[in-house]
């Protein structure tokens, strides 16, 4: 993949663009929003398809139940609110009315992680991937940029079953190809390499690209994957890569406990235990600040990935 920044855009805008495109191509798509239409970039869908847009007010639990009910009329509901209110606040509603009931609901969650910024820890959920991946039958998708979020939004509509789609607030590098097809469950190889594999997801994929460049200056040949689907995990691609590089760094804007890194560590421990380092939030709540300041404070910068790679390569060499 050619790694050139096309522009800086927010992933939530990719969701908004994907949703309105879906509205045009599929009359069964409906959208629900809990008083965050502008924040979720759902205005275009609302304007173009007012009869298929449902403002529910600040009542997320009811929104999840309504979405489950709408599937019974053969609709494909997309719910929209912040990641915090899309998961923790409504976990039992998702568990019983959606996941256990096998309902075809797409839970679309913006403002995930600490890059939400100034609003602080009440809104910066860092546990959502863990909660959602534990639910039987739930697919968990975390795209990395605008183009990929748009493609993922379109792709999840064709997937039968509940999906958690996680994206964010700040403008970040948009570098994946425009209008590419998003393949749920398939790890995206960004660059082949032989010394260490970095598995990154969401906003940290570009951070991993930056880390990869710094490591190249040190003569280290990185293999980089974008794990945009955390569940189901692309175990085959992951195992093939680690058999070659024999050491791993994971990078995500989420708690270490319950995140993508934990899923990969669990896979490795069952099949091929190898040195692994996790770049993630280490059992802390977030706080107010600018996104870049917070990424530095919580150790989620490119430099943190570089240091983790050096450590893990060292551990591999010690054997």
């Amino acid at each position, binding site marked *: 993949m050619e790694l050139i920044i096309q522009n800086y855009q927010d992933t939530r805008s990719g969701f908004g663009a994907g949703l309105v495109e879906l509205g045009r191509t599929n009359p069964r798509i*409906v959208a629900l929003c809990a008083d965050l239409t502008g924040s979720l970039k759902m205005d275009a869908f609302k304007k173009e398809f007012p009869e298929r847009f449902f403002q529910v007010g600040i009542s997320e639990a009811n929104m999840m139940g309504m979405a489950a009910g709408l599937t019974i009329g053969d609709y494909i509901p997309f719910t929209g609110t912040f990641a915090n209110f899309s998961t923790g606040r409504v976990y*039992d509603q998702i568990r*019983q009315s959606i996941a256990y009931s096998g309902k075809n609901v797409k839970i679309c969650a913006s403002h995930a992680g600490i890059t939400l910024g100034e609003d602080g820890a009440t809104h910066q959920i860092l546990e959502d991937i863990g909660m959602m991946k534990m639910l039987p039958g739930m697919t968990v998708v975390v795209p990395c940029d605008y183009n990929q979020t748009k493609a993922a939004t379109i792709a999840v509509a064709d997937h039968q079953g509940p999906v958690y789609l996680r994206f964010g607030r700040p403008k970040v590098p948009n570098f994946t190809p425009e209008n590419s097809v998003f393949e749920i469950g398939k790890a995206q190889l960004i660059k082949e390499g032989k010394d260490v594999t970095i598995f990154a997801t969401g906003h940290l994929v570009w951070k991993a690209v930056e880390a990869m460049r710094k490591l190249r200056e040190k003569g280290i040949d990185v293999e980089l994957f974008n794990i945009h689907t955390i569940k189901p995990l692309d175990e085959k691609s992951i195992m093939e890569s680690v058999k070659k590089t024999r050491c791993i760094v994971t990078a995500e804007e989420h708690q270490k406990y319950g995140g993508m890194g934990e899923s990969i560590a669990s896979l490795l421990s069952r099949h091929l235990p190898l040195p692994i380092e996790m770049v993630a939030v280490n059992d802390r709540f977030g706080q107010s600040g600018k996104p870049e300041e917070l990424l530095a404070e919580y150790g989620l910068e490119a430099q943190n990935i570089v240091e983790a790679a050096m450590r893990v390569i060292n551990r591999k060499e010690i054997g």
Partner: protein
Amino acid sequence: MQNEKLIIYSTFAFLLIVRFSPITTLLSLIKMPEIKELNRIASQIRRDIVRMVHACQSGHPGGSLGCADLFTALFFSELQHKPWNFNMDVQGEDLFFLSNGHISPVYYSALARSGFFPLSELATFRRIHSRLQGHPATLEGLPGVRVATGSLGQGLSVALGAAIAKRLNKDDSLVFVLMGDGEQQEGQIWEAALHAGSRQIDNLIGIIDYNDKQIDGPVNEVMPLGNLRAKYESFGWKVIPLNGNDMEEVVEKLKLARKEAFSGQPQLLLMKTEMGQGVDFMMGTHKWHGVAPNDEQLASALAQLEETIGDY
């Protein structure tokens, strides 16, 4: 020969009338026989409830017995649907949701006896590998159940979503949802009630089983509900009070709700019932909310409930 055919045809027609609802409306002119027949079915459903709960020594007989008349009226008279051809996402049929999923015994008995699945399956209630889970679920593919319920407060939202889907589909059938009275203490109920009232979802009919009993005691001691009628009315609902253990009134009020549908308001049947109705020692107490009868108690209960159309 002709007489023989006539007997077969009339028997078949009678079975259809008893089991499947749309045709029963034809019987509305001769009201008393229908009510009598419905009461006979309700008695059999009550037998099923105590036998099912006794067989696995777990489950919720009290609320189930209290709602046996409602379920009989719904599944053998009011609901316009095709039990023999269950389709999860069906259009053009009435939908029923049970939000207070713990009264699954009465739900399963009504479903089986109205033709959704074989009657013999009632014997598998709460047993391993059964489609009749402790609380209703869709995972095992039990015909008649469209969403899992048990964790309280969620069914009204699901019914609301299904009612909105019907409006989008220009489908003029109705959505019914039964809730418990204790369940009204859940916050999500009021989110959904607000939405339904404010958006005038008038193809939605809520029903509350108001038996004033919950696990820890009388509802109006555990957490008083205040004036439930005024609360729903202030949320934009039309409220119809009724005695849920008077078959004639239940049938009549369900018909009234259908007649009044599509008038700009969701409707609520505020249904006073007696927990444990039909079994003397289970009535007038909250103690039989979730307790199974022993052999002796089962015998005593069955002695009070006439076997009318045959035990499963």
